[in-house]
């Protein structure tokens, strides 16, 4: 039991804290060159225009924005990317917490985000480069989600421009102890 809890923490996925039918739960965006309040509040404005975005907090000097979402949102990574571009910036980094179903994907496991057409290939980082999520991790995710259920996973999004981006699960904090 203790081993399972540690593994859950290590992979960065949670089983609580999000409404059952949420899709994207939170997001953290990074943009380069964000130094002016007209631009910062501009990105805030464009992101709040995205259907499903509930709140945006801007950390101007860090070039970082923290988003929360409405319960039944259908927001996509593409929506967020477009909003940032409309504000005159490029999305330099994106971390997400999202609820979805773990399914078989072309490159191993994938996450089909609940209430949405959005899906991600799942990966985990062993050393420098991300690799397809291991069979062990995949099995664990499936165990945690249960029959027909869903899990909440956290990670950084890579291959942003691709039709199916990759969600790299957070590093194994507990395993490094």
């Amino acid at each position, binding site marked *: 039991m203790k081993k399972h809890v540690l593994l859950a923490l290590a992979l960065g996925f949670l089983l609580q804290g999000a409404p059952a039918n949420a899709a994207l739960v939170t997001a953290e965006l990074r943009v380069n060159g964000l*130094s*002016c*309040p*007209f631009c910062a*509040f*501009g990105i*805030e*404005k464009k992101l*709040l225009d995205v259907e499903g975005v509930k709140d945006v907090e801007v950390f*101007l000097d860090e070039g970082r924005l923290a988003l929360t979402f409405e319960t039944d949102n259908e927001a996509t990574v593409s929506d967020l990317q477009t909003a940032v571009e*409309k*504000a*005159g910036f490029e999305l330099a980094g994106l971390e997400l917490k999202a609820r979805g179903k773990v399914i078989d994907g072309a490159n191993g496991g994938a996450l089909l985000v609940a209430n949405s057409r959005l899906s991600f290939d799942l990966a985990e980082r062993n050393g420098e480069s991300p690799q397809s999520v291991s069979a062990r991790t995949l099995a664990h995710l499936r165990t945690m989600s249960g029959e027909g259920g869903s899990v909440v996973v956290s990670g950084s999004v890579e291959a942003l421009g691709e039709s199916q981006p990759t969600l790299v699960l957070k590093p194994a904090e507990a395993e490094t102890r």
Partner: protein
Amino acid sequence: MRGSGFGRGLGALVAAMLLGTTGCAGELAPAPKHLASWGKLGAGPGELHQPIGIAVAADGTVYVADAGNDRIEAFSSEGEFLRTFGSRGQEPGNFRRPMDLDIDAKGRLYVAEHGGDRVQVFNQEGEFLRVIRGEDTPAGAFDAAAGVVVSPTGELYVADFYNDRVVAFRRDGTFDRVIGNSGRILPGRLHYPTDLGWVDGRLVVADAYNNRIQLFTPEGKAVTRWGGVLGSGLAGDGPGSFRVATGVAVDALGRIYVADFENHRIQVFTSAGKLVALFGSQGDAPGQFERPTDLDIGPDGRIYVVDFGNDRVQVFEPLSEGSQ
């Protein structure tokens, strides 16, 4: 096709360099003495969080657009906190990022909202009077109303940030015209305008991300510009150049003060664009700035600067009258 377009652009650039641009500095006036600073980071009375715009009333009351707190704060000319109004929201009297304000001849406050895409009008006690929206006009909705000015004869002008234009309204509040269009280098082209002023019957536009100041006739003709090489808008830190010119103010002598945001300084020009004064440097000591966004001139000529990155207002003595 591509070549001919380039040729036209080059010709226009040369024309822009030869016509309507202004000269640079002669001998500059001494920096005005720093008199006071007030405000600190916070959300309490008299505190500020990401202040951006400022306007000084005829009685000396200083109004600050406290954008991070979604409210307006009023101070006496000595910095004593007087009152605040507004909170986050979209209802009348609420704000979503109030960025700039101006005061008309009757003392009414006009507040431009970046997130709310509107200008709200208040009396000086903060009571809501009316709202002005772009979608009620042929111009269409504002996309981030960043700056506002009321001309001496009561016409209202709104800097429409993401639409790269200024929208003009008649005295009765009806739509008049659109001034400027999106672009770089050429006269009349705007790139993220943030603030407006009025001098000698001309509209002054802080063409922020073109790194220049442009003057327009009320009919919308671009007549004067400066900043960068011959008004082209090339960013720089030399005298007369800007790195994001976000705020403008005009004093009783018709001198134009510019908040030179990323150069952390204030520059002052004649209405013909001749540099007459330059003061400030980066820092948090008295007289230094961390990205100043806006400024205004009090009835006694004192200069009030929004020191955005230091969450404070700084006050300077009037610029000497000989600096023209």
